[in-house]
């Protein structure tokens, strides 16, 4: 018991990670400056704006879209997005007949290079447990209504395969530039928990 009391970790995660980082740095196994750089990259450079560029390109370039649906990893890399947690990508296309939504029931697999780090709800028990058994109910919680005549497909990601949803291009966006279109694409529309609303007339950004 005395041994256990000595080695039981403190409850405060702030203290625990300080201790661990300090120990690893002393052993020269990590460099705190490199840790800072990693954090900054994922806070400022890698996020859903990357995925939005992929979507906008697919909407405006049919040949790119064909490549994206045939080999997503390669087509996404054409725009410069690749690396950790994006090594093996599949893009699933929303159509008039099918609405796709992505989950990782076992943990938190998510396409980092195109969407960044996942939001808390994506990693938490309620979404992971329920989206596979009641997807339409879950979508309603996000304010997303999928008509009964549209099939809902739920894709369970894993460490070897990650999914990105290609949302439907909203009506009223003919002639919009790729950049204008990318600004419409939300993170949740690429997870599949949202659709992209039709912009108000004359609302081109």
């Amino acid at each position, binding site marked *: 018991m005395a041994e256990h009391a000595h*080695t039981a970790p403190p409850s405060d995660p702030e203290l625990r*990670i300080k201790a*661990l*980082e*300090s120990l690893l740095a002393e*052993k020269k196994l*990590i460099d705190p400056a490199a840790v800072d750089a990693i*954090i900054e990259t994922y806070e400022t450079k890698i996020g859903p704006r990357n995925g939005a560029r992929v979507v906008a390109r697919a909407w405006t370039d049919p040949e790119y879209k064909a490549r994206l649906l045939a080999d997503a990893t390669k087509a996404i890399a054409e725009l410069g997005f690749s690396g950790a947690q994006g090594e093996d990508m599949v893009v699933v296309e929303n159509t008039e007949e099918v609405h796709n939504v992505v989950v990782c029931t*076992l943990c938190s697999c998510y396409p980092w290079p195109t969407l960044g780090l996942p939001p808390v709800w994506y990693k938490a028990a309620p979404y992971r447990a329920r989206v596979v058994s009641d997807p339409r109910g879950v979508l309603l*919680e996000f304010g997303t209504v999928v008509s009964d005549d549209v099939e809902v497909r739920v894709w369970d990601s894993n460490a070897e395969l990650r999914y990105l949803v290609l949302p439907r291009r909203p009506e009223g966006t003919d002639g919009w530039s790729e950049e204008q279109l990318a600004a419409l694409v939300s993170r949740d529309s690429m997870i599949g928990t949202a659709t992209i609303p039709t912009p108000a007339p004359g609302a081109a950004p």
Partner: protein
Amino acid sequence: MNGVHDLGGMHGFGPINPEPNEPVFHHEWERRVFGVMMAAFGGGHFNVDQFRHGIERMGAVEYLSGSYYEHWLHALEALLQEHGTITVDELASKWKQFAEGAH
């Protein structure tokens, strides 16, 4: 392997409550857990499957009551000890040092 992490289809977890305009991290310690894990992973101290298994081996109560980056912290501490990179005594002495420093 079945376990508490295998959540698909389970009932009773309540509403999803997505947070509008959620930040990438909610606390400074989450930033550090993410960065240290990525640096240790990059240094080859464990692979992604070992890391996930480290999380899956958590006790059910701890798993369900802990936040995501608490899971990561648990797996990091466990794997680095199991692989002999650090010892529990080294870690405990750091805990003591920082706990005392905080008061």
